């Protein structure tokens, strides 16, 4: 990113806010969920989820398929409305955002990267990255272009700027997708199983990109099946099952000394 670089991650002191008007909020978490319930029809997807993420924190959400992990992320950026509870992101009370305009204001701060990349197939890599800052943030083209090129270089794809998504490998597409999200200069990044559709070799290149981001102090919430990655990078790991957080804690604790039987069973299956 071309803006002032974040200081290296500190475990205790969260890095200072580099922009935004809420600089005085001190130790207040940037993302805070309280007793969030969500249901599709009669099927309860989330049954009271509570957690918070400090500014610059990295939280990994793990758990079996269908445990509501992706839905959780979609609730945080307002793609999916919640039934009850509260979600706060920076100064936005997400459950109270009704109009499109309000949701758009939120989504300028929270960006999401998807499992299937979801790049716009009719635009080149560079255009994919430039579109939102240009048309949503209405920033000057030259500035956006400079930032987009810098981001492409950052994810190691400077040479692919004129390639269409169809001409890129899965890993390359995903890195463009990450750059596209970063171009909005969000406060929080959500990653929804971003490596699940990739072959093992390309998983690494995407994880390296995310690792770099996290080290620069970007607040990240990742839904992932990459346990080694979660262990290395996360400040906190949440194990979800059946729409609730079964257990949470620092990776060393959750992976090495899980307290709950369900967590142990899950981890023994995949580790």
């Amino acid at each position, binding site marked *: 990113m071309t803006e002032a670089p974040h200081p290296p991650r500190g475990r205790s002191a969260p890095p200072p806010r580099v922009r935004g008007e809420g600089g005085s909020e001190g130790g207040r978490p940037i993302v805070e969920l309280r007793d969030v319930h969500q249901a599709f029809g009669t099927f309860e997807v989330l049954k009271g989820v509570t957690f918070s993420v400090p500014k610059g924190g990295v939280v990994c959400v793990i758990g079996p398929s269908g445990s509501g992990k992706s839905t959780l992320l979609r609730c945080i*950026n307002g*793609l999916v409305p919640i039934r009850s509870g509260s979600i706060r992101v920076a100064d936005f009370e997400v459950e109270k955002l009704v109009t*499109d*305009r309000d*949701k*758009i*204001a939120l*989504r*300028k701060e*929270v*960006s*999401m990267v*998807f499992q*299937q990349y*979801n*790049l*716009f*197939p*009719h635009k080149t890599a560079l255009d994919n990255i430039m*579109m*939102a800052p240009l*048309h*949503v943030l209405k920033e000057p083209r030259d500035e956006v272009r400079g930032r987009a090129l810098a981001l492409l270089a950052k994810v190691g794809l400077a040479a692919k700027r004129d390639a269409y998504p*169809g001409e890129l490998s899965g890993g390359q597409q995903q890195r463009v997708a990450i750059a*596209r*999200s970063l171009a*909005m200069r969000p406060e929080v990044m959500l990653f929804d199983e971003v490596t699940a559709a990739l072959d093992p070799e390309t998983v690494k290149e995407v994880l390296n990109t995310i690792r770099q981001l996290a080290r620069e102090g970007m607040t990240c919430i990742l839904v992932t099946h990459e346990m080694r990655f979660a262990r290395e990078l996360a400040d906190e790991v949440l194990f979800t099952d059946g729409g609730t957080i079964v257990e949470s804690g620092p990776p060393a604790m959750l992976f090495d000394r899980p307290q709950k039987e369900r967590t142990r069973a899950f981890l023994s299956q995949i580790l």
Partner: protein
Amino acid sequence: MRTASIKLNASQGVLLAGAFLVACGIAQAQAQAGQPSIFETIWKWTPLLARGFVFNLAISFVAMAVGTVTGLFLGYAQISLLRPVAKGAKFVTHFFRNAPWLVLLFYCMFLLPFQVTVFGVTIPIPDWTKATLGLALPVMANVSEIVRGAIQSIPTTQWEAAASLAFNRRQTMWMIIFPQCVKRMLPPWMNLYAILTMSTVLASIVGVNEMMTLTQRALSAENRPGLLLAFYSYVLLWFFAYCYPIARWTVRLEARYAVNQ
């Protein structure tokens, strides 16, 4: 697509040409001494028939243009978030899509006035305008369905990606969804145009001076029953020559876009 894809191929063209020649042969055999040869007769009438054909094309262009523009709006309205708008658009679409083209043509011919007076100025509405409008209605309904189908064929993940980048609905529609639809809409749209072109001869029934009407006039002027088959084959050949390249091009586009998406 409900409008079945027309599959024209070269062998049909050869067959048609063959039928034309056989018909000419029969007509020639029936010709009485002293009558001009069949080819001479057709050649004599060709300039007039060609003028009629140009009129057919003009009707097809205008009907297609009007139908496409209105159909785009109607299709867009079909996916409106406002339920009454979506329902209304759906009703209009299905009404005109499921009505026989000829019936719509008659409706337009007989329901529209032959002139309108706006602010004291009297504007005549000639028959061909009404016929064009009558043909534009089913085109509109079919374009509406093409648009709706194309928009809904774009994966919802594209909407999600756009939403999470803070695009609003309108921006998403015009910058992200619609540009991807154009490719998908082009082949069925061209197919629809070919069908429309062939349907312009329906205008003969309501008395518009297009190729079919003129052919009938030529036949009655000649008053030689043997010419019937030859003349109609000749008309078929004209339409085939025009629609065949369009059909081939459509098939090529379909194949190309199937690979790319």
